[in-house]
């Protein structure tokens, strides 16, 4: 009965996803990091399943040439695999039709060296997007590049960000109806967040929507119909800030974008307000730490909801939005399911922006809940940071109950698979000066394991029943994405390099493999030119969680890497820097 219900939903969803993709790629392809516009990271391939996964073995490997954090998703189409390395962002095309998948071509964008100094959390990239025989990706120094997928020739290159103001670009672009959507990174540098749309054929700017400032800059017009009253009003992006603070107010968009072709809306979250020290920016700080629904053609906003008004703890709201069609209270609802950094799993009506439910999926004491009438997060006054005061034991931490690393949804089980963390922190707000191009943070933070002592958790969440179905404790924080397949398997990796396959129904470990370095990447699966299913993952520790290893940071300073080092002091002894693609398949 249960399976039947979800099978139906899945069929609906799948049809939408493919209809949206234009010339629908065979399901064996993987053309965008989230697999589909609904961001499910679910593949219908089922050759590898629970009863044969233990035979999985390495098919081939490839060195990325950079021993830095590998957060990107490998992309596959037309017998070719496309890989983007962290800075210097070399793009490799591997020929899957030949044995050992040799390099077909490579493209070197030569980004500015100095851009490494404005990348808050390692020199990562979260991948590329394949669209109409183009590979489109961002370089760390604020450029978007389109490369011909057949021969690696540069088609266009557009400068979208300025490193001298602290901007970088780390996200994977998303192409929707011929528009390349890119947001900036740099919320720790006091940049002003935006999302830009470039014409996918020419690289020319179509529109640009800022996330602070007057309505005309935010592209808020007559179509804007937010659900909650607090988001209604004129120029809230100015009036919810101290004078001029919105100009350095953050609200970047470095995470994930989803797209619903029926509503013709894109959904994406905005990051933390700058600086972290909230005393320097009284007010609700719109439109940071919230989610926008926009028309992809014009950029005009449809609705907005703020997860963390006047964010106190760097709870960026850039996490993935899974577009699901669920039956809630007997009614079919088109929703966004979203494991948010502030620790709640939100289920939001994606047409109206109404919060249907918000339940903690990890340990939360920084707030007491979400008021579903007003939609407002209820902060816990006891944990409110103040300048000159160390507030202890705040959960979740600055990287949130879950950071950028995306979850997956399997329509076969109806569960969302969330790789996340179980950390708490001490926080001292400090006065901070805005000096363009230097960090604008204003908080001394040290993080440590949350209740139970395990620093990571892998949770299978039922968004209808609003509870966790099963949980697996992991010693280290989880910083890798998840992948769900029709073989009822879920894949994820750990910071010390284990790549795991677990049963989608009960979380039991079915297979694991120790890769060369810690895993913070996004697993994908594809059907090779030989017709068989492959699983691919990049291994290479880094990012915020792995900064202690790649940055050779000193754990004697508990505030190193904004406090993350203190939570993973043992990581240096458990893994080393690396950068290798691993591809697995069943033996032939």
């Amino acid at each position, binding site marked *: 009965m249960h399976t039947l219900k979800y099978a139906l939903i899945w069929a609906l969803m799948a049809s939408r996803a493919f209809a949206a993709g234009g010339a629908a790629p065979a399901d064996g392809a993987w053309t965008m990091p989230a697999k589909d516009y609904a961001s499910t990271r679910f593949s219908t391939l089922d050759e590898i399943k629970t009863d044969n996964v233990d035979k999985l073995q390495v098919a081939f490997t490839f060195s990325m*040439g950079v021993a830095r954090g590998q957060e990107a998703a490998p992309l596959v189409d037309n017998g070719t695999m496309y890989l983007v390395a962290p800075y210097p962002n070399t793009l490799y095309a591997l020929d899957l039709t030949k044995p050992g998948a040799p390099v077909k071509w490579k493209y070197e964008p030569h980004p500015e060296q*100095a851009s490494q100094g404005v*990348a808050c959390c390692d020199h990562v990239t979260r991948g590329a997007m394949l669209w109409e025989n183009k590979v489109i990706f961002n370089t760390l120094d604020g450029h978007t590049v389109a490369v011909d997928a057949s021969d690696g020739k540069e088609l266009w290159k557009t400068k979208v960000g300025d490193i001298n103001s602290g901007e970088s670009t780390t996200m994977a672009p998303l192409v929707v109806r011929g528009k390349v959507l890119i947001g900036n990174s740099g919320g720790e540098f006091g940049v002003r967040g935006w999302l830009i749309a470039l014409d996918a054929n020419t690289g020319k700017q179509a529109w640009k929507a800022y996330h602070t400032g007057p309505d005309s800059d935010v592209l808020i017009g007559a179509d804007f119909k937010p659900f909650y009253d607090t988001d209604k009003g004129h120029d809230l992006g100015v009036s919810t800030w101290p004078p001029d603070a919105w100009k350095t107010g953050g609200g970047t968009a470095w995470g994930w974008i989803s797209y619903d072709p029926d509503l013709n809306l894109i959904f994406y979250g905005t990051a933390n307000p700058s600086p972290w020290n909230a005393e320097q920016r009284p007010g609700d700080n719109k439109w940071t730490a919230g989610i926008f629904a926009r028309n992809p053609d014009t950029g005009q906003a449809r609705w907005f909801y703020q997860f963390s008004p006047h964010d106190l703890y760097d709870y960026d709201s850039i996490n993935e939005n899974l577009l699901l069609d669920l039956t809630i209270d007997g009614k079919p609802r088109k929703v966004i399911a979203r494991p948010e950094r502030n620790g709640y799993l939100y289920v939001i009506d994606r047409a109206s922006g109404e919060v249907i439910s918000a339940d903690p999926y990890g340990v939360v004491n920084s707030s007491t809940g979400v008021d579903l009438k007003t939609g407002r997060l209820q902060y816990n006054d006891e944990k409110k940071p103040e300048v000159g005061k160390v507030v202890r034991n705040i959960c979740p931490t600055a990287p949130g109950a879950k950071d950028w690393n995306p979850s997956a949804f399997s329509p076969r089980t109806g569960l969302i698979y969330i790789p996340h963390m179980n950390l708490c922190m001490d926080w001292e707000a400090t006065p*901070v000066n805005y000096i363009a191009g230097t960090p604008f943070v204003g908080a*001394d933070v040290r993080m440590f394991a949350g209740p139970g002592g395990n620093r990571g958790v892998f949770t299978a969440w039922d968004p209808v029943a609003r509870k966790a179905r099963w949980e697996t404790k992991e010693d280290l924080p989880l910083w890798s994405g998840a992948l769900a397949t029709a073989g009822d398997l879920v894949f994820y990796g750990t910071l010390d390099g284990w790549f795991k396959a677990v049963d989608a129904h009960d979380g039991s470990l079915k297979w694991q493999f120790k890769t060369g370095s810690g895993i913070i990447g996004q697993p994908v699966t594809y059907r090779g030119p030989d017709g068989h299913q492959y699983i691919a993952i990049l291994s290479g520790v880094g990012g915020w969680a792995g900064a202690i290893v790649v940055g050779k940071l000193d754990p004697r300073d508990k505030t190193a890497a904004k406090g993350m080092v203190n939570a993973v002091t043992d990581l240096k002894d458990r893994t080393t*820097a690396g950068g290798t693609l691993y591809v697995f398949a069943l033996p032939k």
Partner: protein
Amino acid sequence: MSSHCRNSGRLLFILCVIVYLCACDREKREYRTAPLPENGPHAETLSALQPGASAPPASDPRGREYENNAYHINQGERLYRWFNCNGCHAAGGGDIGPALMDDQWRYGGNIDQIYATIMDGRPFGMPSFRGKIPDTQAWEIAAYVRALSGNVPKDAAPSRREGMSATPPLSQTPKQPPKNSEQEPPH
């Protein structure tokens, strides 16, 4: 008995004088150094290899003055936060930028080299603060950075850290002389 008293009294007096004299130098404050030309120690080399007979490295005498002076190191600590050095290097443990409290130095760990790194910037993300941070303040920051790895005299290093006290007081930091370091870049 009384001679013992007299002796210890004399000893105490001598000690006081010594402490007093030491203290003079330790906190000597020069608020108004003559405006210095903004051309610090450019003679600094980054390579241990020199063609021909090697000449002793030229070092700027100002460096020694700053790193032996408690007032300047303290000012350096304040400026390190004011100018957001902590944003990239945390309290010395590192973040976007490398750790400063260990013995690894990509561009050299003596005060002249640190001064040059602040002023000139380095290609992998360290901004150049020339024209932004005045000469005297750059020396003060460099002196504080030296203190982070215990490379200043113990009596000049701050004996207390403000705030969350992430690390022990700098006067208790073990001295970690710069070692031969593996070089950037990691890619």
